[in-house]
Every structure is written in structure tokens, then in C-alpha cells.
């Protein structure tokens, strides 16, 4: 598998704040990577660096290019949706399609038309006349019709209702994703992308606190639920964090002995949300 993005010691400071503090990671072709972190963790800075919109120290290569200095070449191969509000309000749907078709050599109009045909968006509407959900559909239709190798999504579903969010990710998986394409996505609505991700990167205060494939989570992390009388024994095994849930104690472990955990209670693979809380809040506490 080819490496699409490679970051080494990426650092970015804004005044006294370190938005990125020596971040290193790799993204391979054909993956869907979730970049997850609390507000101000450095997610957007990392994405901006990948898109060549922010200058960082350290080394960064995207599709073999230096995104900051070779941005003009990168934009043909990389697409991004920054968030839902960025399509200009005065733009007419038909004009938007014409424009992208006019300036983007990899845009395939029929794909875009095909996708829009499944929505209720009218060609004569202006963006300001569309609902938030429709604007996202339009933006996605424009971007999905571009034969790009990397798609970067920064909170793409912010402010959308559940149905629109679900539709967004369904379209992304069924109509866009294939083995040649790669998606990097950040979102707060972690539970919604849990099932589509292939890789997970947690970022907190400018540092990467977790970086692993989704199918590797089960090997490394385990969640154990025990009744109160076994809490002390569970605590002794060194959990990342603990919480109480419906009269039971729930512990999250990293690299724990599966047999020792199973002897105490019910063990399962933690959800991304639980893992997130344990790694980020637990680590901070």
C-alpha cells in the first residue's frame, strides 16, 4: 500500500500556543482516517497543513508533494470540504456545476448530475435558497464528481440534522470511496463515523495520543464492566479510566491481559467515544 501522507515532527505555533507539537503520522492509500480531538486540539491546523494552507515546521509530504510550496499542483489531486457554510450564497446551482466543470480538469459532470438527480435541489436555485442539508448535498455532489486521490473533510456535517448526516456518510461510502481514494475526516460526532473509519488518530493539545487501525483497537484496548464488589480488583489491573454505569463499574484498559480481565467480568471492545474519553480526559486527569 502506498503512503499518501507522511508527516514528521510537524510543529505549528500561534503566538504562545502550540497548535501542533511534533506530530508524526502516515496515511496510506485507500484508507478512511478519522482525526479526532477536542476543540483546539490541532485538528484543523493539521488539515490546513495537509492542504497547504498553513506553514508548519517539520516535514510533510502529500502525494509526494510539499503541500505548502507546491499547493497549486496539489489542488488538482486533493479536494476538501471545509464546512457547510462555505459555498457562496449568491451562487446558482447550475453555475456552480459549470464553474467547477470549467476550472477542474478532473471533474466529471455526469457523476455530479447523477448525484444531484437523487436530491430535490433545483438547478435554478441560488445557494441562499437551499437548506443546510441541501447545501451539503450540493457541495458533496461537486466534490464527489472530482476524480481526486485525497478528500479532506473538516467537520463536514456541522449543524446538520441526523438524517442529513447519515445521508452524507452513506453517499460518501457508496458513491465515492474506492481502493484508489483516501479520506481524512475530522468531526465531533464520533459515533456517526465509527463504522466507516479504517483508521483512527486522536490528537490532543497538539500531540498524537493514539494512532491505530480500527481493527487493531480490540487487540490493544479492552473495556471491562464489573459489579461494585470487584471494582477494587479491577482497579488493581491499572485501567486508563473508570466510570460508574447503572450500578456497575466500567474500566478501560490498554494492553491488559485478556484472561485476567475475563475472570473479573464482561469484556468488550470499547467504542471510539469511550476510548476518546479515556485517552483524552483520563490522560489529563
Amino acid at each position, binding site marked *: 500500500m502506498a503512503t499518501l501522507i507522511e508527516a514528521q515532527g510537524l510543529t505549528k*505555533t500561534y503566538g504562545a500556543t502550540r497548535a501542533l507539537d511534533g506530530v508524526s503520522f502516515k496515511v496510506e492509500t485507500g484508507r478512511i482516517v478519522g482525526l479526532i480531538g477536542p476543540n483546539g486540539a490541532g485538528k484543523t491546523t493539521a488539515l490546513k497543513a495537509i492542504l497547504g*494552507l498553513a506553514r508548519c515546521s517539520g516535514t510533510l509530504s502529500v502525494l509526494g508533494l510539499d503541500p*505548502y510550496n507546491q499547493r497549486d499542483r496539489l489542488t488538482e489531486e486533493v479536494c476538501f470540504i*471545509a464546512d457547510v457554510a*462555505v459555498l457562496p450564497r*449568491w451562487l446558482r446551482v447550475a*453555475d456552480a456545476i459549470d464553474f467547477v466543470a470549467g476550472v477542474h*480538469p478532473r471533474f466529471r459532470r455526469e457523476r455530479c448530475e447523477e448525484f444531484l438527480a437523487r436530491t430535490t435541489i433545483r438547478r435554478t436555485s441560488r445557494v441562499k435558497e437551499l437548506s443546510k442539508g441541501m447545501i451539503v448535498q450540493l*457541495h458533496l455532489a461537486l466534490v464527489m464528481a472530482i476524480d481526486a486521490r485525497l478528500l479532506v473533510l473538516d467537520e463536514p456535517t456541522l449543524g446538520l440534522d441526523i438524517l442529513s448526516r447519515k445521508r452524507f456518510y452513506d453517499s460518501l461510502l457508496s458513491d465515492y470511496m474506492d481502493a484508489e481514494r483516501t479520506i481524512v475526516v475530522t468531526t465531533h460526532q464520533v459515533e456517526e463515523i465509527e463504522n466507516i473509519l479504517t483508521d483512527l488518530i486522536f490528537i490532543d493539545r497538539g500531540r498524537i495520543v493514539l494512532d491505530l487501525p480500527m481493527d487493531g483497537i480490540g487487540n490493544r484496548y479492552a473495556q471491562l464492566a464489573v459489579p461494585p464488589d470487584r471494582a477494587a480488583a479491577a482497579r488493581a489491573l491499572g485501567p486508563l479510566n473508570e466510570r460508574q454505569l447503572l450500578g456497575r463499574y466500567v474500566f478501560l484498559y490498554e494492553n491488559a491481559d485478556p484472561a485476567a480481565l475475563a475472570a473479573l467480568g464482561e469484556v468488550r471492545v470499547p467504542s471510539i467515544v469511550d476510548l476518546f474519553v479515556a485517552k483524552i480526559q483520563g490522560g489529563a486527569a
Partner: protein
Amino acid sequence: MNKFLWLMRRELWESRVVWLAPAVVAVAIVGFALLSVILTGHLHFEGIEQETLTGLHDQLTPAKLDALATVALVGLTVPFVLLVGVTQFLYAVDALYGERRDRSILFWKSMPVSDLQTVLAKAALALLVLPAAAFAAAVVTEIAIFLIASATLSGAPMLISHLWSPGVWLDYLLASLTLLAGGVLWYLPLVGFTLLLSALVPRSPIYYAVLLPLGAVLLEYLTFHTRHLGAVLADREVGLFPRLLRHQGHGDGFGLEFGKHTVPLPHGLVENLDVPGFLASPDLWIGVLVGAALLAAAAWVRRYRDAAG
């Protein structure tokens, strides 16, 4: 269609003022002329009463009639020239700020279009498309007004025939197109400056674009008691016309006689064009260089303003 033309079309979708403003002015002038005909029964022709005009008719030679028609064309062009001054400024001041304000810049930046291409497209719209649209509206207005004049100035058949003289029109069109082309070069630094501010300042670029030059002029006056900057700026605003179209018609007695007074008339516009003189003017090329640098700076700012942090 190539990328650059798409960028210009995009500007036209966004800034309807480019074609709407000249259309409104054209409709207003023609409407006012029609209203004047309906209310008073005749046309006020360049401030000269119809009776006066008819009275003058006999002393007018064909050359003077051509000159009168030229004066009418130029007179009808003036409102559009002033309009371009205003719309060019309003367009340029918002051109790179609007996309930041509504954050659509992130959408435009996701397209394979360089910042320089974007800035050049906006400059081309301000310097070329906007004046050309206003000029087209001026020509339509002139044809409409001359049609109204032809229908109502029945007392001056000679003048009417000269209003439609191909020689007069050719002269006017050639001179106007030369001025349009000259304006692209002459106004480059003003448009470049306005676009740079539009890309650079945090908010309300229109205030910066008005107050910065005013403040600089005032500062110069208070500090050195000189007015060089003000003179340079004023010359940049209006200096195109005296440079490219030399003032003439005075002193040779060619004109309309009103008793003792003679109102001078032009002999023709093209023969008074001074293209070599204009092109040889250092002011022009200094302006072009400054303008090019300002456009490059605007592109640089659009590319890097939030990137360096």
C-alpha cells in the same frame, strides 16, 4: 472555455453591478430624454434650446455639424465614465474581501486555481470588463438619444443627418476604444491598491481605501506643508484624459458664434489622440510597474494571509 474566462464569468455572477449599473444609467438618461420630449415637446440638446439651434442652423458648416454631433456623443459618454470610476472602486474594494467575509474563499481555494489567476481575473474585470460594459451602455444610450433627436428635431434636418454620420461615429468609437485601452494601463495602480487592501485588511476595506490616501495626503501637508501626494493621486484619477486626448479647439476660431462669443468645437477626436506621447510618458510605466507589484502583493496576501500565523 479556458479557466481564466470561467473566473471572469464567476465575477459577473457575483457582481451584477458590473452590467446592472450601466444599464440603470442608460435607462435613466433615455427615460429622462423621453420625459422631456413628452412634457415640453422637444429635446434639450446639450443645454442648447431648440430655437437657438434652429437659429444657428444657417451658420453651421458641415464640419461644425460633425463637431456638434461629436460633442453630443462625448457629452453622453461622460456620465458613464464617472460611473466606471465609482463602480470600479466599489467592485475592487469588495472583490477579495467578500470571499473572506462569507468564508467562500475556502471553496474557491479548493479548486485548482492559483491565487494569482484569481487576482488577475478580478483585476481584468475591474479594468477591462467593467469599462467595456459601461461603454456598450453608452453607445446604446447614444443611439437611443439620437433616434429621439431625429424624431423631434425636425427644424434642424442638417444636424440630424450629421448625427448619423459614419465618419463622426467611427471617430468617436476609435477614440473611445483607445481611451478604454489606455485606461487599463493607467488605472492599474489604483485597482491594484484597492485589491490589495481588499485582500489585506481585517474588515471594512472601503474605509481603508478612502481614509488611508486621505490620511497620507493630510499627513504630508501637516508635516512638510507640501501637496505632492494629493497632486499625484488627483492626476492618477483624471490624468488619463489630458494625456491621451490633448485639449484642443481653442484659439483657432473653430466654434459656434453667439454674438461676440465663440464656443470652441473639436475638430475630431482621433486626430487629437496622442498615443505615442501617452506611451512615452514615464508616469504611465511607473504606474504599470507599481500596479503589477500591488497585484502580485494582493495574490501573495490571498495565498498566505492565514497561513503564516
